[in-house]
């Protein structure tokens, strides 16, 4: 191996260590026994790896309830946001109409407001609608905030589908909505799957609205649940890290499936301007 080759791999190794080391350390912590967590000097590896932390987390804390809530909120958010975003992307990518540019600008601007600015009045709105401490408040908020980026992403995919296909279908008697259903959606399915996972990840991870809209254990999602663990108990790091691993794993796995599409969707806009 040439010297420059060696350096290259050395830097790649450093980069990967930088990215992955915290995850590895958290995983190791989660499989240590309680006593081994608090030793001085630090012991890097557990002498007897155990999944006791995971077992205790599920048996003695409301973690499964939090998980159920997170799943419910994420599934409904994905359904609503995807439906809304597909319609909007179809409009932006296939029609020319007055006010298209300002309307798409409005989409972008929604991303710029500080979440806290919206959280305060939204809390009051949700209270008036009597949906605080229910999944509905989070589904409503998450759907809305997922729509702009999702629309942007799907619009990019729809633009790459040749318009000749639409025209051919229309000559065969298809309406515009028929084109969307029979031509566009099937052809854009890789993009739509990527968008689905993006929305899921957003909803699954979202913290501030979940924190402000749910104070009841029964309605909490995982991020808020884990946050309250830190305050409620003497911090049990074996349980907390186990919870962190269970929370992070699904998004990381999903992400690895769609990363190519997501990176494409993400970088396209910024580079072509």
């Amino acid at each position, binding site marked *: 191996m040439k010297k420059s080759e060696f350096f290259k791999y050395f830097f790649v190794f450093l*980069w990967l260590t930088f*990215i992955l080391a915290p995850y590895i350390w958290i995983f190791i912590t989660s499989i240590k026994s309680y006593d081994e967590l608090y030793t001085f000097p630090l012991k890097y590896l557990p002498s007897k790896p155990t999944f006791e932390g995971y077992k205790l987390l599920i048996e003695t804390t409301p973690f499964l309830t939090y998980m159920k809530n997170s799943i419910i909120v994420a599934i409904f958010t994905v359904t609503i946001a995807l439906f*809304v975003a597909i319609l909007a992307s179809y409009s932006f990518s296939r029609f020319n109409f007055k006010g298209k540019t300002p309307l798409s600008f409005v989409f972008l601007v929604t991303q710029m*407001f500080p979440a806290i*600015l919206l959280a305060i009045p939204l809390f009051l709105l949700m209270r008036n609608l009597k949906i605080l401490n229910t999944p509905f408040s989070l589904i409503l908020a998450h759907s809305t905030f997922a729509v702009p980026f999702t*629309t942007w992403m799907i619009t990019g995919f729809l633009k790459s589908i040749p318009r000749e296909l639409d025209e051919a279908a229309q000559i065969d008697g298809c309406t515009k909505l028929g084109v969307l259903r029979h031509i566009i959606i099937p052809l854009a399915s890789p993009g739509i799957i990527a968008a689905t996972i993006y929305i899921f990840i957003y909803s699954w991870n979202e913290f501030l609205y979940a924190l402000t809209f749910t104070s009841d254990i029964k309605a909490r999602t995982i991020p808020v649940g884990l946050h309250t663990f830190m305050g409620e108990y003497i911090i049990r790091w074996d349980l907390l890290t186990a919870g962190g691993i269970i929370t992070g794993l699904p998004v990381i796995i999903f992400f690895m499936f769609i990363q190519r599409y997501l990176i494409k969707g993400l970088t396209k806009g*910024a580079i072509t301007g």
Partner: protein
Amino acid sequence: MLSERNSYFNKWEKRVLPFLLLLPAFTLIIGIVAYPIIRAIYLSFHSFNPLKPSIFKFVGLENYIRVLNDPIFIIALKNSIIWIVGVVFFQFLGGLLGAIILKQNFKGRAFVRGLSLIPWVTPSVLIAIMWIWMLDGNYGIINDILLKLGLISRYIPWLAQKDTSLPAVMIADIWRGIPFFAIMLLAAMEAIPDELYEAARIDGANSFMIFLNITWPLILPTVIITTMLRIIWTANHMDLVLIMTDGGPGFSSLIIPLMSYHTAYKQLNFGYGSTIAILQGVFLVIIISLYLRLLRKGESIY
């Protein structure tokens, strides 16, 4: 008859359908974004405690005058500036380094690139758990490593000390944002045609000159856009600060959005909390325009 109906239908499809398709999205945006913002502005002129809804008093500019004289707000403002500038600057530096590494040809490159973005999709709560645990004053691995390297002489409670709490949270946020920067810059670098590099190499340019004269100017637009996205994001997202230090100890790591959250949800002062959140928006606009002006100045030098 049939063709007449068709032409009506065609007009409908052209004129009405595009708006109809956007209707659900705009209903959500108006209800969940636009209306709350107007409500927040309205609230900022009132004194309001949600537990005592009968007391809803118009106070005019009182909240705004109060903010400007609030010593805690001044601390939060100062911390916010350090937070945004520090985080975004180091994310950019790390991201640039990462992009250069990921640009090289090596085995398993696609997979490594995929792995690189993992921190970007990790829930804030997990990132906070990681870093609180790694930075722990008694059992933290960071203390362990620094001590072994001889860089510190005793364990330091990074998050529980006034002069290290803000930088400690910043490190966690910098770590989280570097991969995003790296991937964006990498994509920009990949868009540069190879012929440019070849031509420069034939002309005898070294790697550093090539970077300075070809790569950098061509990735600059992406640098600007990504930096702006990160400024907005970093200014508004306070999840990590909230979970890791909650602004403490004292007010040493308090940033403006977190102060707004505390005011509204801990002191139950929704009016004053809204005022602070609005100023956060104004503050962000100022930062962005300063950043853009700085860039324009920079450009005129070239």
